[in-house]
C-alpha cells in the first residue's frame, strides 16, 4: 500500500465519500480515504434517511434542490450497480401554530424562487389524499412537496465509494486516524492505527469528531456532538395513496416519520440532550417517540418496532455546516457541523468543495461557510430545522 498521497480524507460517511468521488471525477484520484469503522457507520448510516427541499433559507434550499437532482441519478452518476433506494413519496410538513404557519408562507416563497414545486395543502379534504389516516387535531396548516422523500444512506455512501474506487481512490476501513501531522504551518499527513500516511492536503470529514482532530493543530471549530435517536418498524404494505406513506414532519411537535420503499417506517423525535458522545439507545425514547407520533398518526399503533438506534448530530451554532480552511496548518480543511441534515445536502456540498479545490467557478461562495461567520455575525440562519 502507498504511503504518500495528494489528498487524505478522514471519514467514510457520505461527506467524505462524495468529496473523494467529486475530486477523482475531476482527475485528482491520488486520494486515500480513511474510515475508523465501516463506510456509512457514523452519522450517515444512523440518520433518518430523509431528503427534503422544503427549506426556509435560500442557501439550504439550493443545496438540497441540487443534491436531490444528483440523488435522482446517483447510480448512473457513480456507476454503482446497487439500488440507492430513492423514493420521492413527498414530505408533508405540518404547522401547529399561526406563527409557524406564517413562517411556512415565507418558506414557500424561498422555495418557489428556486423552482421547488411545494404548495399548501387544504386540511379539510386534500390532506387525506397524501396521508389518508392523519389526525388533524391541533394542526394549523400543511405544505407538501412531491420531490422530497427517502434515499438509502448506506447505498448512497457505497455508491460514492464505489465510484471513487473505480477512479483510483484508495479506501482504508477499520483504521483510526490518531493524529494529524503538521510542520512549519503546513499539514503533512496523518498517523493511524495502521501506520503513517503523508499528504500535503487533509480533508477532515469526521463529523462530531472533526473538531477534536482540528484542535490538534490549534483550529477551533465550534461544533458539538448531540445524540439523536431513531427507530424502525417491521415492513408493511404501502400506506400512502400511491405507494409508501410520505414523510410527515412537525417542527413544533418535533417528530418525523416516513415509510421507506421497503415498507418499514423510520421515525424519530428531537429530545433535549446534553453535549455528549453518548450513542446508547434509551427506552424513554421508544415510548415517547411512539406516543408523540401515534397522536398524529393513530393508524400506526398496530405496527411493531423491530429496532432502535442512536447517532450524533454535529451541531454548529447556527445549525449549518462549517467549511474551514486551516490558518494554523495550511492544507487542512475541516468540514462538519451539518447539524442533522448532512445526508441530504452532501452531494452538492461535495461539488462545492471539489470545484473550489480545482479552481472551477461556482454560484455558491464557499467562504460563507467559514467559521469566521461567528465572529462577523454573518450567520447562516435557517428557520426550519428539527
Amino acid at each position, binding site marked *: 500500500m502507498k504511503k504518500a498521497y495528494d489528498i487524505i480524507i478522514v471519514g467514510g460517511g457520505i461527506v467524505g465519500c462524495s468529496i473523494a468521488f467529486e475530486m477523482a471525477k475531476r482527475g485528482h484520484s491520488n486520494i486515500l480515504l480513511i474510515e475508523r*469503522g*465501516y*463506510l*456509512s*457507520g457514523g452519522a450517515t*448510516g444512523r440518520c433518518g434517511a430523509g431528503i427534503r427541499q422544503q427549506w426556509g433559507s435560500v442557501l439550504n434550499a439550493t443545496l438540497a434542490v441540487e443534491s436531490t437532482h444528483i440523488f435522482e441519478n446517483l447510480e448512473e452518476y457513480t456507476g454503482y450497480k*446497487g439500488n440507492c433506494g430513492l423514493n420521492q413519496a413527498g414530505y408533508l410538513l405540518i404547522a401547529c401554530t399561526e406563527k409557524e404557519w406564517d413562517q411556512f408562507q415565507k418558506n414557500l416563497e424561498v422555495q418557489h424562487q428556486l423552482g421547488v414545486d411545494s404548495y399548501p395543502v387544504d386540511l379539510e379534504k386534500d390532506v387525506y389524499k397524501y396521508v389518508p389516516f392523519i389526525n388533524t387535531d391541533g394542526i394549523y396548516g400543511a405544505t407538501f412537496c412531491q420531490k422530497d422523500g427517502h434515499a438509502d444512506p*448506506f*447505498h448512497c455512501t*457505497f455508491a460514492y465509494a464505489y465510484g471513487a474506487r473505480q477512479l483510483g481512490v484508495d479506501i482504508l*476501513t*477499520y483504521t483510526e486516524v490518531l493524529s494529524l501531522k503538521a510542520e512549519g504551518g503546513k499539514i503533512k499527513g496523518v498517523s493511524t492505527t495502521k501506520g503513517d500516511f503523508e499528504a500535503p492536503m487533509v480533508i477532515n470529514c469526521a463529523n462530531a469528531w472533526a473538531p477534536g482532530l482540528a484542535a490538534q493543530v490549534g483550529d477551533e471549530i465550534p461544533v458539538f456532538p448531540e445524540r439523536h435517536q431513531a427507530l*424502525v*418498524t*417491521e*415492513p408493511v404494505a404501502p400506506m400512502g395513496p400511491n405507494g409508501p406513506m410520505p414523510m410527515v414532519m412537525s417542527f413544533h411537535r418535533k417528530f418525523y416519520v416516513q415509510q421507506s420503499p*421497503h415498507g418499514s417506517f423510520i421515525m424519530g423525535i428531537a429530545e433535549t440532550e446534553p453535549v455528549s458522545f453518548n450513542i446508547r*439507545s434509551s*427506552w424513554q425514547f*421508544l*415510548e*415517547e*417517540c*411512539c*406516543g*408523540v*407520533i*401515534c*397522536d398524529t398518526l393513530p393508524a*400506526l*399503533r*398496530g*405496527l*411493531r*418496532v*423491530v*429496532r*432502535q*438506534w442512536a447517532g450524533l448530530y454535529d451541531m454548529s451554532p447556527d445549525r449549518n455546516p462549517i467549511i474551514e480552511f486551516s490558518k494554523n496548518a495550511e492544507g487542512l480543511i475541516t468540514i462538519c457541523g451539518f447539524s442533522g441534515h448532512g445526508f441530504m445536502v452532501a452531494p452538492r456540498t461535495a461539488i462545492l468543495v471539489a470545484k473550489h479545490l480545482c479552481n472551477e467557478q461556482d454560484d455558491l461562495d464557499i467562504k460563507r461557510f467559514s467559521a469566521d461567520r461567528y465572529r462577523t455575525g454573518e450567520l447562516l440562519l435557517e428557520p426550519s430545522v428539527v
Partner: protein
Amino acid sequence: MADQILICRCEDITKERLLEVIAEGYETIDEIKRATRAGMGPCQGRTCRQLIAQELSKIYGVPMEEVLMPTFRAPVKPISMGTLADAHKKGGE
C-alpha cells in the same frame, strides 16, 4: 442449488447473495447487513448473523469468536407502537 439456501429468512437473503457481496468486498457482518438488509428483519439477525459469521470465518480464515459481531439492538422482540405509546401516556399521568 445449495446457494439458494436462505441465510436471512426475514429479508429473503440467499447464500448466493451473501457470497456475492463478500466477493464485492464487504468484509464484516455490519457491512453485509447494510448492503443486503440481512439481519434487519423482525428477528433482528438471531438466525442469520451466526450463519454469516460462519461464512466469514471460513473465507477469511479467522476463528468464529474473532468475527466482529454487530450491535444487538433493543427492543429485541418486536413491540407494537400502540403498546409503547400507551406506556408513554401512563408515565405522563
